[in-house]
């Protein structure tokens, strides 16, 4: 194998793969990146065995070939030679020589055959999503994914492809984020629900620059392609909890509050709250919300009051609602509030042990986004 490439270009593509390379792997070959050159097209592949990421870049190809190259050393050297033109050559013994105008570096590689390859399936369902939607919907939900290892069925984002709707949902049992694309045009007969693992979702979000995406899947595997990136991943082989029943339909107290005032207050409350439960008490009445946090263990407490109003379903002010107290994990509430993109947000409540629902004061076109948060007992 022999090719030439600019240092900064190689560094850019190698760093795309960097995050999937396991820091400590039982399989030493995974410390490498597989280089596969055909003509001027160089494909780079890295994996942690659960996820494979492939990127393709244009180089000046001189001789086709395949080899596995230690990722860390190659990335380090290419990062320091960004402006140089690199000539890369691999001999029969998998020794890689990198030459610049005034330097020569040699790295020992591994046979390409030792590197695992992703399973290429031909009979997968396919949907196409514009890059904006795919990345946006993942980013609106992924923070709610369960991170404890016990409840696997919640440890990813549900993508629910429906007749005329596309839903992304994530939950950890304490909060649930759901976003619906209402103008989704069904592209085939498929009606499928898949759970995209958290880590796969994070890689997609990191690498996708709002590029249109081709999503292929069956019950077990997922392949996402966009721009010059292909991501292969296993899906979570479990059924997502039936979440529709837990979303309250009868929350009758709807509160309108400034997003920035509430999120700033919550950030301050977090400083004074118990470090594990992160509990904040909200004492809500028409006109104002008192936000209180305390941590008796370190004798700290904080409280502040912000403006808010009760509104009716139509959005007009509602003076009839009686005051009430409810408590939340401030982090969860802050996460939810941060996802809203309007200056004012609505939070609807039932009672102090029922889920509250946050929504933007105005939904984006053809979209329905809610985040549900379970309260903490007031005690």
């Amino acid at each position: 194998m022999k090719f030439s490439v600019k240092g900064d270009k190689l560094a850019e593509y190698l760093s795309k793969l960097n995050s999937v390379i396991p820091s400590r792997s039982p399989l030493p070959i995974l410390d490498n990146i597989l280089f596969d050159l055909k003509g001027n097209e160089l494909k780079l592949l890295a994996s942690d065995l659960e996820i494979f990421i492939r990127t393709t870049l244009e180089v000046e190809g001189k001789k086709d070939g395949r080899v596995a190259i230690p990722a860390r050393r190659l990335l380090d050297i290419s990062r320091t030679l960004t402006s140089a033109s690199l000539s890369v050559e691999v001999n029969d013994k998998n020794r890689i020589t990198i030459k610049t105008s005034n330097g020569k570096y040699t790295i020992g590689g591994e046979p390409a055959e030792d590197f695992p390859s992703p399973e290429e399936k031909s009979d997968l369902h396919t949907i196409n999503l514009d890059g904006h939607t795919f990345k946006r919907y993942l980013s609106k939900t992924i923070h709610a994914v369960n991170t404890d290892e016990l409840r696997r069925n919640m440890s990813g984002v549900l993508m629910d492809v429906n007749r005329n709707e596309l839903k992304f949902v994530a939950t950890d049992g304490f909060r649930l984020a759901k976003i619906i694309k209402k103008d989704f045009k069904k592209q085939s007969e498929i009606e499928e629900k898949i759970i995209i693992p958290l880590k796969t979702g994070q890689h997609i979000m990191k690498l996708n620059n709002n590029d249109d995406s081709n999503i292929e899947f069956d019950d077990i595997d997922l392949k996402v392609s966009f721009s010059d990136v292909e991501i292969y991943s296993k899906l979570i082989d479990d059924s997502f909890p039936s979440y529709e029943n837990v979303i309250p339909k009868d929350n009758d107290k709807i509160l309108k509050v400034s997003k920035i005032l509430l999120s700033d207050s919550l950030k301050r409350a977090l400083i004074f709250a118990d470090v594990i439960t992160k509990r904040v008490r909200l004492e809500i009445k028409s006109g104002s919300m008192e936000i209180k946090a305390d941590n008796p263990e370190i004798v700290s407490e904080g409280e502040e009051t912000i403006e808010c109003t009760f509104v009716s379903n139509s959005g007009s002010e509602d003076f009839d609602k009686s005051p009430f107290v409810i408590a939340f994990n401030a982090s969860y509430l802050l996460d939810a509030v941060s996802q809203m993109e309007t200056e004012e947000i609505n939070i609807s409540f039932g009672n102090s042990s029922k889920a509250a629902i946050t929504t933007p004061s105005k939904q984006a076109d053809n979209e329905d986004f809610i985040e549900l948060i379970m309260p903490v007992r007031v005690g």
Partner: protein
Amino acid sequence: MSEFGHKIIFHIDMDAFFASCEEAIRPELKNKPLVVGGTKEDKRSIVACPNYLARAKGVRTAMPLTKAMALVPEANFIRSTKGLYSDYSKKVREIFYKYTPVVQPMSVDEAFLDVTEVLHLHNNDHIKLAEIIKNEIKSTLKITCSIGIAANKICAKIGSKFNKPDGITVVPFGKEKEFLAELTIDKIPGAGKATQDKLKKYGIIKIGDILKYNKSFYENEIGIHTSFLINVASGKSSDKVSEFGEDRKSLSKENTFWEDTDDRDFLQSELYYLMERCCQKLRSINTKSRTITVKVKYFDFKVNQKSFTGKKYSNVETDFYDDAVELMDKMLVKKKKLRLLGIKFSELVKGDAAMQENMFDDVDKKENLLKKIDKIRKKYNYDVVKFGRTFKI
């Protein structure tokens, strides 16, 4: 306040309580060394309580039964009688309440009584009142106790040990420091062997010696927290006798096995059982926890323990079980069988405070079910309801 200008606290400690109760219901056991804890067949048991004749021959509480057998082969060795001690404990407590409403039971066989406000009914004679209580216990229950009288709790507690059995000791009011100064440091309640050994290295043998050094010396040089020790040596301690006891900081339970084991299934069952018992207690006092500690003792008596603090408070054993198993697994070492397994719940909170609701998991439903099971078990016995996890034991 009493006419003395301070409180009058009694610490009443029953003398060789389990053994005395046994002798009270089976007088034929009297006048001979008696060891409660197990019969001569129960080779792995430990001594729960020796009577004074057995103590005279060197038998101590928590000593392996085999050792006690070697010391006094002629003694009567009996297993403890279920329900007897709590029964007697209740009766003793009833007697306390006849004399003062301010009683803080510390365990089955000891309690603090604040008699400050009732002393005028007894001519302000605290010794007389102590004798009345002691005599009533002796005449109605046929068991004896020792009473320490002092202006604070620690001094009263040290006092009750001073003249055992069947004695009364007054720690002179205002002269506590002098009274304690000549006593050895092993008389301080709660000062374990490790602390004692550290102190002895610096020539601190008597309680009075503690005041030779200041707090920073102890913390920097010896590495122990000594506010408590310095207060004791100065004769100071709390005089608040609280009916509800001190705030509970943790709740634990442990079990020594009949034989050492490394059977993981058995250990998991045992772990679940211990957690069930602790959580049952937590539920009964409407308390929740979020930190569990699993303790193991290996065949060679070496101890190891690991803790985990979860995100939510609970008193439902299933909420902690998986984490507890993980902690235990980390401590299971090849070729090292366990002789003891224990579990501790700490970071306790009263009531429902700070419980994070879960949309897919009805916490109350689980807790209510377990509360009903607790009731059934209380009425009949533990074994009438069993979960699959504890079938093995």
